[in-house]
């Protein structure tokens, strides 16, 4: 029942904060958000899952109650954790309190609504990562969009309305496409499934339960469903060419919202890809390995090149997220233990590092009120600690060993280079590795221009040291990144345990 307690508590906390006075809503939200974090740590300590939740592994904290039963298929409240979802749950509950603290300085209107929506989003994110029934999962998945729409649209920058609506339209259209894809699978499965529980559907597909649907052959239905779901999730990830909502949303969103958008919301896309496309339909994924790997590599290189061309620090970090998510896709499509495991690990690592980068840029912005590379120089003089952490985070992004980013990318490259199921795997891997060089290029050049040299600022603000509550979350994040980099096994062991059945899903059939 611990997962129910986690989700219910977070919903209640959101309600309490919504009704709290603006003056101390931020403090209250932080205090309340510490409870789900403690709860997720407790869940981690009691974790007894084994294998992958979808392929018959032992599901930790499994609980299932029937919700609606119609037309021979039941919808149920079905939650549980495995080695893939637990790290993401911990990541979510860890990032939200930090994001809330980072909001104390920039958010100065309608605070109780802001923090209430943040907690409401957290509750739904926890639902996304724990739900094992398609309907339950979909309800949470969509419910994440609503608070995000308001968080960008109300508290965002000058073009916030455009960004919020673009985000909403893109992701909703994507959801519809994905929904249609999944439902066609369920229809094609016909009587071989009696519920929307993901493990049951996965098993039915693996056992050849797909039948004809409206005269379309089972293989075609599966392929169509794969493509529809891939396209739907690709928007969320995002991959090139459906990434254009991301920079707008990131640039307009306030810092704490960007942190969660990059840190957790993008992982919803890769998590769903892993669960639905790569675990349920491994053979289709493997048959389409070359185009998917090509999309991944294009995302890596093109995203990095776009970042190279930006002047706005936040845009740079936003585009580099597109690049980093490309590595995750590459890791998934190679279907090796280290590839899939590394991709999952990279989700967590990127969540922490991009969260750190957005937060650090936000702290600088709080002081300077500009994010343009040309508008400032020598920030290291005035904000030594913030800048120090920002530089450390940037090195984490570039994949400095002993930081989480290195571990994630290293696993992916190890897994991808010798992948047996992906033709030309070494070539794809080498191309993707080249992305790191570009990342280093733009990050070093941006830092050189803004952080070092003699101090200069175009805007008319007095720049002093950032307040402690701005810097503390940065330090905590950096510490977490280093811990994960030094000892990746704290998560990688359980991730690998859950990733192996995914890999076996394809090699058994091909």
């Amino acid at each position, binding site marked *: 029942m611990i997962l129910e307690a986690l989700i219910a508590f977070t919903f209640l906390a959101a309600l309490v904060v919504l009704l709290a006075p603006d003056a101390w809503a931020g403090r209250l939200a932080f205090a309340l958000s510490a409870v789900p974090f403690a709860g997720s740590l407790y869940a981690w300590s009691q974790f007894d899952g084994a294998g992958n939740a979808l392929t018959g592994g032992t599901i930790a904290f499994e609980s299932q109650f029937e*919700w*609606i*039963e*119609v*037309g021979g298929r039941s919808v149920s409240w079905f939650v549980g954790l495995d080695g893939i979802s637990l790290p993401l749950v911990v990541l979510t509950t860890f990032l939200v309190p930090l994001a809330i603290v980072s909001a104390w300085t920039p958010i100065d209107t*309608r605070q109780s*609504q802001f923090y209430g929506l943040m907690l409401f989003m957290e509750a739904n994110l926890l639902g996304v990562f724990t739900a094992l029934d398609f309907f339950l999962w*979909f*309800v949470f*998945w*969509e*419910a994440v*969009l*609503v608070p995000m729409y*308001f968080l960008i*649209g*109300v508290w965002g920058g000058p073009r*916030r*309305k455009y960004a*919020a*609506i673009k985000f*909403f339209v893109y992701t*909703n*259209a994507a959801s*519809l496409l994905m929904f*249609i894809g999944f*439902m066609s699978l369920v*229809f094609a499965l016909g009587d071989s499934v009696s519920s929307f529980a993901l493990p049951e559907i996965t098993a039915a597909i693996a056992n050849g339960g797909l039948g004809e649907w*409206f005269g379309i052959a089972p293989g075609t239905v599966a392929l169509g469903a794969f493509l529809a779901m891939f396209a739907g999730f690709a928007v969320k990830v995002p991959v090139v060419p459906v990434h254009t909502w991301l920079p707008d949303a990131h640039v307009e969103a306030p810092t704490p919202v960007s942190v969660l958008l990059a840190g957790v919301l993008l992982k919803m896309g890769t998590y769903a890809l892993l669960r639905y496309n790569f675990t349920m339909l491994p053979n289709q994924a493997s048959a389409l390995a070359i185009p998917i790997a090509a999309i991944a590599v294009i995302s890596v290189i093109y995203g990095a090149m776009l970042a190279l061309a930006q002047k706005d620090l936040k845009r740079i970090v936003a585009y580099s997220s597109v690049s980093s998510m490309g590595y995750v896709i590459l890791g998934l499509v190679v279907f090796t233990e280290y590839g899939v495991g590394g991709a999952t690990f990279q989700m967590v690592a990127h969540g922490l590092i991009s969260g750190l980068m957005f937060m650090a840029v936000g702290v600088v912005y709080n002081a300077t009120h500009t994010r343009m590379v040309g508008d400032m120089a020598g920030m290291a003089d005035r904000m030594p600690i913030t800048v120090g952490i920002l530089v450390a985070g940037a090195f984490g992004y570039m994949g400095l060993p002993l930081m989480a980013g290195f571990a994630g990318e290293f696993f992916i490259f190890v897994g991808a280079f010798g992948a047996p199921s992906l033709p030309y795997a070494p070539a794809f891997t080498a191309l993707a590795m080249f992305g790191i060089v570009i990342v280093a290029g733009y990050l070093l050049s941006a830092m050189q221009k803004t952080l070092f040299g003699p101090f200069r600022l175009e805007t008319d603000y007095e720049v002093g040291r950032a307040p402690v509550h701005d810097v503390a979350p940065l330090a905590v994040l950096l510490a977490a990144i280093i811990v994960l980099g030094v000892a990746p096994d704290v998560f990688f062991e359980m991730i690998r345990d859950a990733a192996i059945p995914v890999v076996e899903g394809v090699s058994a059939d091909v």
Partner: protein
Amino acid sequence: MYNALPPWTALAPALLLGLTGLALLLVDTIRPRSRSNTSMAVVGALGALASLAVTVWFVAAGTGSADTGGGITLFADAITVDTLSLFFTAIFASVTSLVVVAAHDYFHDHENPAAFYSLTLFAATGMALLAVANSLAVVFVALEMVSLPSYALVAFLKTNRGSVEAGLKYFLVGALSSAVFLFGISLVYAVTGSLIFAEVAAGIGSLGDLAGIAGIGIVMIVGGVAFKTASVPFHFWAPEAYEGAPAPVSAFLSSASKAAGFVVAFRVFTEAFPLGASVSAEINWVLAFGVLAAVTMTLGNFAAAVQEEVKRMLAYSSIGHAGYALIGLAALSAGGSGNGAVMGAAMAHLFVYGFMNTGAFLFVAMAERWGVGRTFEEYGGLARRAPVACTAMAVFMFSLAGLPPFAGFFSKYFLFMGAIDNGFIWLAALGAVNSVISLYYYSRVVKAMFLDDPTTPSALDTIDARPTALYAAVVFAAVATVLLLPGFGPVIETAEAAASALF
């Protein structure tokens, strides 16, 4: 439990509504000076709630359900009380109580609010009678009993030109369609020799050369249904009437009155003109409803997308939703195993719609009460002054659009899936496309309220009053819209059981 009571008590929900209306009229007539708006509203709301409570009790006790011996028939088979009628009565009673509560604040300075409450309750009585009608004669009488108070309600603000004009238009179109409907009934009577549904059905099975006349009669009855449900081709009164009418009346008409049209359609076309017999007589009304559903939902959604006034947008969106609900008839197939599922899903959609659409119109009522204007622009920045009410409105909008966190998602989902299961994938696809379009104009309201700035800095200063009863009605409807998501199981199961009993 029901065995202990005499059979006529099965009509208790309708009787309670009617008696409350009469009581209000009586008090108003005897003591016209000392009546108070508040006590009238309280009595009206209590009457509607009592009716709702009895209905829910009957459903729970299984009155008239297939498990307890089927529908209870009264008055020489002219009336039958079964789960279908109770389900729809629950919709009517809950919408009526919401509207009566909200009207208390809306008509706070009206000179004669008592007439509003009694007219609303009389119309609701007519709806409850429509739900139990088992004879075409009862259908017509009950239909007029709904229509006549409705005409008066639309024109209730008699000093307001818009309201009077809307009332007149509604009356003219209504009179015409009543005549068409009645002529249709007489043609059906001429060829089948009866007005009782079961006997009409028997007559349809042996039409012989008279099939053409029966066909014309059925088409005319379809026209009457289209008027009541605000579907194409008798939809054009709806935007005018809903826009001109006082907003609580629009809420009442677009939710309850529409549902009343559907209960007639569902029962008449399954009981009196069973699909198998009709098709073999070459009267394929499923095809007619398929075309109507497709045109209605598309027209409603496209027209709603270009409106500048929120109330008018809601009026067209209610036409669009009539199109979705028509899928419940359009996706039937003779002997199809999924008939009960798809019609039950349409009923569940109307149930959810009863809350989300009533709530949306009541929010418009609140905006009218505040005097903030009618267009999307004039709703700008409303959330800063009235965050709770605007949150409720956002819930209604997202739910009407069918976004997953709200009950409107499930009801649409089951409707479209039911259509696909019954082989009507094109209707489901069209419905899904229309739902996507609808997200555009529904989210415009949310955008205006939450993201946009007020048109002028002082535009929101008119929001001085806190109409408690209106607030309560809007918030209650929003809570119901949210809670119907986890609580959707009992609704859809009751609806499917009720619909399956018809086939």
